[in-house]
């Protein structure tokens, strides 16, 4: 055992440290890709890293050229098998990772090392294509420091310096580069991407709402605390019950699942003019949407327009030109009081269609209620009353619905989540001949008291209905909201049903919970700032920043001028600091003693050029006996500082002090 340990320790000392920095840096750079890339590629990459480490430990040999080419072929095949393509974001990253690890098998010339380190930096940027959070940014800064250390270690060639000095050097270089990088970040003209159309990724998982709604779709989000988006209102915050964040309209129903027809029926890129009258005050806000890999954007009901690079659809959904793959920030105006489509009835029969044979009992109920009511509005109210009066419960874990979800929910179980209510309500409307659609989106949000903005989480996902009434246009109806608080199973859901009631009844959390909550808000605020200033910093934000500096309407030529002017200035400052003449550490002891001699010289007792300190004091003391004690003290201190094996503690300070006080 001891023998083995010693053998390993010996081999460990043999490893060349630059290689070690590189291997560790690369492994840490690849770590976030674990889980994102298929195991078919991650495992070989890890094996190749291990192989190189084994080679550095002098345990294994590197593969022959033949074997290397074979491995390249296998890597290509594995990538193809995983993605059926070699380009695009996912497949491209996978290919880069596996090829880089293969390059480790032939890394002996400086050029190979440069390629490996350069591509390792590139791996860091590929991680940012998937995750740009603050934590990931901090982690990657560490990785970049390690890779830079590898670069310094390799370029030092002969120098035998402790590796810690290399690490310190890399950190120093990065710190000196930081102001320059900041300037580039702020002033480099941002070009709105993409430069070419990106091949779509089948593989990347979308989060949040989908474009279909079947029982269970939304309730699965109810425990998901991930942030969907954050909102900062420019003025007054609208009341909680008006915070309906509009997402997609689902108009097609097959008896179980509601679908958004945009992909199939209508062109996604056709813009519509909406017949729309605002009746209240406008609400201005900036929304920062977390990437959800889908094309639709969210807006407060009802948006007055669409942000750049997006369009408004017929059902007033905001559809972006590209799917949201990175954090997206936009400023919008909405009216929470509005009239929409008040003119003629919607021509599209899709708002009325129900698949034949589904929900027979619901159709009977609809006919019955419609016959009893005076008009459409009255009918709508009667349906809501039905839900309120019958024993409907609101639960996160609704029972399974088997054959006819609508009928089973309305008449048998009567326990459901918002999607059940929205679905059943819309079916009842259509059954009575009222055009209706299901809307999905988010409802409510949590104010972050530390940052004065709203956090909307995936757990706030919601579904409601929109019904067209003659004379009033499309009206938003939230059937879930009519359920009395007493029939809400989970107290946490009360917020959604009746915010006022929830506020009254909420038990005061103990201090630990409060603290935890407060810390959560603090952390979210930091993340929000990160998103606002770093991730969301695009062309618009850049303009905003420059106009805040008093530079309105900067065209790109001026911006480049500004950039280079600033860069020149910062480089000059760094150079000034680097090239400043640093005076050598002077002989402080000698200087203090020289000052003492000068003082005596002014009194006509200069030290002779070859006179030692002892001789000098012996010559001077008889001439100025009143100074004897001081002269002896200074001379002794000087001698001890100069010649004693161990210098006295604070000797220099005492010597300086004594010389200062010495007044011959």
């Amino acid at each position, binding site marked *: 055992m001891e023998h083995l340990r010693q053998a390993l320790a010996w081999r460990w000392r043999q490893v060349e440290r630059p290689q070690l920095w590189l291997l560790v840096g690369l492994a840490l750079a690849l770590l976030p890709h674990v889980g994102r890339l298929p195991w078919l590629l991650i495992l070989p990459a890890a094996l190749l890293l291990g192989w190189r480490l084994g080679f550095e430990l002098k345990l294994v040999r590197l593969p022959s050229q033949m074997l290397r080419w074979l491995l390249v072929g296998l890597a290509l095949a594995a990538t193809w098998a995983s993605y059926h393509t070699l380009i695009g974001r996912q497949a491209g990253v996978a290919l880069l990772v596996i090829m880089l690890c293969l390059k480790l098998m032939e890394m002996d010339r400086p050029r190979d090392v*440069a390629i490996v380190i350069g591509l390792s930096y590139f791996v860091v940027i590929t991680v940012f294509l998937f995750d740009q959070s603050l934590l990931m940014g901090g982690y*990657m800064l560490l990785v970049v420091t390690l890779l830079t250390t590898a670069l310094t270690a390799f370029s*030092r060639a002969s120098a035998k310096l402790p590796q810690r000095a290399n690490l310190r050097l890399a950190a120093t270089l990065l710190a000196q580069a*930081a102001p*320059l990088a900041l300037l580039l970040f702020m002033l480099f003209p941002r070009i709105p991407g993409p*430069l070419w159309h990106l091949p779509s990724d089948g593989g990347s998982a979308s989060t949040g709402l989908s474009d279909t709604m079947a029982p269970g779709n939304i309730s699965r989000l109810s425990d998901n605390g991930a942030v969907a988006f954050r909102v900062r209102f420019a003025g007054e915050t609208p009341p909680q019950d008006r915070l309906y964040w509009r997402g997609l309209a689902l108009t097609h129903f097959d008896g179980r699942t509601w679908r958004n027809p945009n992909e199939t029926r209508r062109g996604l890129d056709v813009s519509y003019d909406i017949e729309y009258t605002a009746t209240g005050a406008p609400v201005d806000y900036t929304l920062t949407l977390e990437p959800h890999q889908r094309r639709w954007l969210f807006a407060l009901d009802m948006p007055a327009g669409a942000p750049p690079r997006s369009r408004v659809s017929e059902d007033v959904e905001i559809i972006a030109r590209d799917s949201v793959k990175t954090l997206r920030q936009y400023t919008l105006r909405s009216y929470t009081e509005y009239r929409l489509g008040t003119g003629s009835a919607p021509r599209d029969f899709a708002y009325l269609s129900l698949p034949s044979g589904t929900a027979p009992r619901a159709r009977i109920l609809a006919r019955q209620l419609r016959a009893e009511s005076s008009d459409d509005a009255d009918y709508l109210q009667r349906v809501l009353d039905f839900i309120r009066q019958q024993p409907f419960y609101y639960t996160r874990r609704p029972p399974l619905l088997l054959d006819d979800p609508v009928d089973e929910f309305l008449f048998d179980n009567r326990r459901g989540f918002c999607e059940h209510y929205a679905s059943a309500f819309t079916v009842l409307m259509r059954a009575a001949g009222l055009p209706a659609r299901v809307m999905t989106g988010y409802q409510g949000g949590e104010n972050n008291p530390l940052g004065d903005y709203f956090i909307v989480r995936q757990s706030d996902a919601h579904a409601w209905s929109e019904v067209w009434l003659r004379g009033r246009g499309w009206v938003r109806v939230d059937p879930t909201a009519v359920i009395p608080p007493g029939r809400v199973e989970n107290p946490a859901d009360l917020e959604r049903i009746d915010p006022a009631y929830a506020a009254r009844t909420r038990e005061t959390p103990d201090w630990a919970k409060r603290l935890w909550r407060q810390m959560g808000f603090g952390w979210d605020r930091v993340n929000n700032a990160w998103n606002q200033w770093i991730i969301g910093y695009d062309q618009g934000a850049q303009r905003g920043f420059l106009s805040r500096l008093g530079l309105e309407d900067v065209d790109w030529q001026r911006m480049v001028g500004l950039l280079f002017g600033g860069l020149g200035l910062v480089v000059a400052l760094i150079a000034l600091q*680097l*090239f400043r003449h640093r005076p*050598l550490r002077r002989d402080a002891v000698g200087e203090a003693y020289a000052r003492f001699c000068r003082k005596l010289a002014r009194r006509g007792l200069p030290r002779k050029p070859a006179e030692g300190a002892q001789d000098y004091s012996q010559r001077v003391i008889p001439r100025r006996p009143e100074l004897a004690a001081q002269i002896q003290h200074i001379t002794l201190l000087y001698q001890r500082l100069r010649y004693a094996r161990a210098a006295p503690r604070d000797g220099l300070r005492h010597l300086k002090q004594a010389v200062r006080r010495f007044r011959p």
Partner: protein
Amino acid sequence: MSLIQRLSPARFLRGEGPEAGPGKLRQRRVFILPTRQGLLFAVILLLMLIGSINYDASLGYALTFLLAALSVVAMLHAYRNLLGLRVDTGPAEPVFCGETLRVPVSLENPAGQTRFAVSLHFAEQKAGQGRVFCDVPADSWVRVELPLSARRRGRHALPRITLATVFPLGLFRAWAYAEFDASVLVYPRPARATPLPRDSVWQTDLSGDGGQGADDFAGLRNYQPGDAPGHVHWKTLARGQGLHTKQFGGDHAEELWLDWQATAGDTEVRLSILTRWVLDADVAHYRYGLRLPGQTLPLAHDPRQRCRCLEALALFKGAEPDIITLKEYLG
């Protein structure tokens, strides 16, 4: 130095010509360009920028800019790593043709920070050959011996020295030329063992050296001030018999004339043979002299005789000797 001179490409490629004393590397003598690795790094940075634009990745921009800024800072550091160094050379021991000269070069760093991984080599040497790396600590100096292969005999001006560094990241190479008003001496390559010209060995001159040599013990005489301490006979002093100096007899020293005429072949072959004879004669403690066309070095045997002879051989200019031989032959 005028602006035109300062910007001339010749200065860029060849430096500024020789100088006598220690040379300080000032701004205008230090050049800097990206290395091959640096260019590769630039290409990767460009790809990273394109990727960041295409995917609208803000942290991608941040990383790209951080690395770009890092390379700018590395450039400044590389430049600083050479700036202000003082370079000087000392005399190199002469060597024989085909051997390697070791030229002492001192690097002085008057600044407060260490200069790391400074490489030195003679500009004319092939890449990678005879390159010496050193670190120069702050406020200190180091001395290195720079190898220079001696390919031709004679006295040669010291070639230009290139000082270079890729510190700290290997992305930029800063370099400077140092040229000195100094020379190195290369003796001819000694021929393979060639017997000494025996016929001339026994032409002894009976006058000898009067017993001043150090070869054969001849007896003692009274000490005179100025006698070498190594020759004092300490044993007689210990016996209380006073100071005596050992006397060596040189009267039987073998004398040897190394004559150009005794050799055959072309100039370099003859010089090689003569060089070999000088070495052998020196080792064998002969009193020897050298006769070259147009130059004669008298008989002597002291440590400097070897140097004198070898230098004469090194600096020997050909052409004439053959004509002389011809004249002698004709008449």
